[in-house]
């Protein structure tokens, strides 16, 4: 499979994602420019990644402008055709703004940017240590959507403590129900606030991110 990382003006985790995929995970990866539209060399086995950063400055709502970029029109078509799309941080915000994922990301409950290691867990109760770095990462959706996400196993990660307990104290931004990441109903579009690409290199002392990228994106289909 191949990976394509979209570069928006203001993306700043694009190179980190590229490095993690290429050097830490040995994958075939290329960069895609926001003004282009061509995704013809990607098929539904491949994955398009929307990286972290401040696309178009994010002076409006985060991701609200990126949604209208030429490349995003192709990414939306690609997702609707069943291609895998993965958004991290600003990428997650863009996916919500594009309505490829439900809900939205609000300003952190304490009104401050937060950068630190947090713990997240999935439905197999594995615990991963992954960094977060965002000012607007508080996942929000109405109760009906939240119930639906949980009923369909679409919440892919919850913030938790080191032991895997999903507690209020372990929630870094006030996200509803401690939600750190979700996927769509057809399980080909994924978004998460924590940065797995920052936890892939042994030299950085944390490689928990590798398992996240491989299990989410490199298995044929996420098991529900």
């Amino acid at each position, binding site marked *: 499979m191949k990976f394509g990382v979209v570069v928006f003006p*203001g993306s700043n*985790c694009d190179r980190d994602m590229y*490095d993690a995929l290429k050097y830490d995970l040995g994958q075939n990866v290329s960069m895609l420019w926001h003004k282009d539209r061509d995704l013809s060399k990607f098929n539904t086995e491949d994955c398009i990644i929307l990286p972290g950063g401040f696309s178009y*400055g*994010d002076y409006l709502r985060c991701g609200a402008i990126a949604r209208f970029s030429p490349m995003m029109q192709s990414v939306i078509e690609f997702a609707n055709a069943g291609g895998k799309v993965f958004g991290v941080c600003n990428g997650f915000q863009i996916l919500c703004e594009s309505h490829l994922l439900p809900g939205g990301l609000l300003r952190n409950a304490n009104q401050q940017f937060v950068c630190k290691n947090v713990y997240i867990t999935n439905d197999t109760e594995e615990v991963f240590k992954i960094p977060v*770095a965002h000012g607007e990462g508080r996942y929000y959706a109405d109760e009906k959507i939240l119930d639906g996400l949980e009923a369909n196993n679409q919440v892919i990660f919850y913030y938790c403590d080191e032991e895997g307990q999903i507690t209020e104290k372990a929630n870094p931004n006030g996200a509803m129900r401690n939600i750190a990441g979700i996927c769509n109903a057809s399980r080909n579009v994924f978004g998460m606030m924590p940065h797995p690409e920052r936890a892939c290199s042994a*030299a*950085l002392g944390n490689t928990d991110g590798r398992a996240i990228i491989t299990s989410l994106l490199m298995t044929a289909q996420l098991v529900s």
Partner: protein
Amino acid sequence: MEVTLKTAQQLRLTEEEFELIKQKLGRVPNFNELCAFSGMWSEHCSYKNSIKWLKTLPREGGRMLVKAGEENAGLMDIGDGLGVVFKIESHNHPSAIEPFQGAATGVGGIHRDIFTMGARPIASLNSLRFGKLEEDKTQHLLAGVVHGIGHYGNCFGVPTVGGEIYFDQCYHTNPLVNAMSVGIVKAGETVSATAEGIGNPVMFVGSATGKDGIGGASFASADITAESAQDLPAVQVGDPFQEKKLLEACLEVIQTGAVVGMQDMGAAGIICSTSEMSAKGQSGMRIDLDKVPTRQKNMKAWELLLSESQERMLLVAKKGREAEVQAVFDKWDLPCSVIGEVTGDGILNFYMHGELEASLPAHDLVLGGGAPQYDREYKEPAYFEKVKQFDASAIPVPADLKAVAEQLIKLPSIASKRWIYTQYDSMVGTVNTSTNEPTDAPLVLVKGTTKGLAVTTDCNSRYVYADPYKGAMIAVSEAARNIVCSGGQPLGVTNCLNFGNPYDPEVYYQFVHAIKGMGEACRKFDTPVTGGNVSFYNQNPDGPVNPTPTIGMVGLLENINDKMTLDFKNEGDLIYLLGVLNNDISCSEYLHSIRGVKYSAAPYFNIDEEYALQQKLAVLIRDKKIHSAHDLSEGGLFVTLCEAGFNRELGFSIQTQSGLRKDAFLYGEAQSRVLVTVPVTKAKEFEAAMGGFPCEKIGVVSGGEVTVDGDFWGTIDWWKDEYDNAIENYLSKEEAGSALSSI
């Protein structure tokens, strides 16, 4: 408008300087020209009161690839065809008035200095000073500065990996905000700030110009008074998104090979970049100011010359290759216009709608050219008498030593800066290795190689106040010690010299002696001063700040796997203290903040012992004899032990030494000491390796209990809570929230 001496004085030029201008030009300058001199001959741009002494610092040698002051930042060879570019700069005055934008544009400005040379910034640091944290004013300034640094750096996408913060009453009105950037450049891809080649186009790229920041350079060259808030238009407004695009576009345009020279527009805007590039290239320029993209209507020539609007660059391209340059900036949606051309006569001619608005010899405007250089008088400060009178024997050793430690660990200058650093993106770029494995100096990877860089900023201004010469030596030594503790070899220094008003002879004494001490230490460690910044006038009607010559230092690790971390590794490891034990409480945080002694001598320091310690430590690390290394600094041994224990929640059991005051042993700040741990199985080998070097076994790493001379002092978790939460406890949530929401 007729130009008179009064006009010159209103522009903060002296009578003597006005005469010199007339003499240089052979006529009375017009208003535009006078404004140009006002900006360029301001302290900030001309270094007129400091250059004489700066020249005494070691400014070449080692791995330096350009001489200090010749380019926008220092450049040193790190092998494998790569260079490291680094610089520190102050943004004190703007931050005192408007902390959010002041700090934000300080970060933006220092990164531009790095990428204008063709380097990609990979790490930033900052050195901050505020008044007492109890004060509302301090909390407002702190919240604003931290938010500003985060706002700019997080969006720009360079990790903030380290820094230092101290709180002291002397900074109440004049906070210090020093920002440092470190970048990597490939050999052969550096760009010089020069204008060469008659007829080559001068291009203006980046943001449009507005009236913000006009007179910023001269504003930064005056004391802060009650009227300073009226200087608000002198504060610039930053746009990190624009700068991120400018970074990518500048690095891309260099690849075209069409660039002759490039310089960012910082202090004194267009006049500074045109004059410095022309003076360096021994050329002149013809500039059409009406071709500069503006965001406000009817800007006058002097406003265009002096505006400090952010995120702008001046670029000289090869004639005929303008389209290639234009294409790159179009790709990044950045304005780019040809505003003039390089000429051969050394004169800067600025036109507006065909009218000549200013005609100035480039050489006369710049440092090293016609800008004045002064020899200021100085005299020993009167307060030195009080420093000399300090007698430690008059301070009784307290009965309850544990109570002292409980207070010490919570002092804002010592406690965890977690509230601050979690607001900075410290991990973007995936180079910061110290997030998960703490080190004395943050270590960043040089991607594509096995190398790492150790970067640090250091200055304890209380020591410099007590003894400017020794205090500045200590600042350099501590920076080098932090790098050596992390497994690095110190390479070079950038300095940010924050002082009061240079026309005050006592302030100038501090400056002169700090430079002398810094020079001696830099020669000892073979770390040349590659550049930096002088910030005078950190003074208000209550007096100057403590002399604060902040040292930014960069060190190299050939192989990142040879690094050393600061945390205790295993219960049972033996704890040794390297360095001379000294019965010294002088100038310590303990003496100052807990015992309330304002005047005392600088702590014990001997530069030869310091050098020997660092050499010894480097060998121990290379030969893998130790498990951890952490240097002793503010708070002394006890705080150092706690910091080493926090990461893995390991405690310690130690014994104080006979013949020493217990408070000196636990809380003294005598210099040149490092705490190391050694596994029991390697103790003999370690002790043999130490030879006769001063070294004491003081205790053992425990599973979590903290024990001093057999007395139980609680658990490391308890100390960690006190340490971690101290600053948050000062800033109640409502207050911190409202301070931010008002921004």
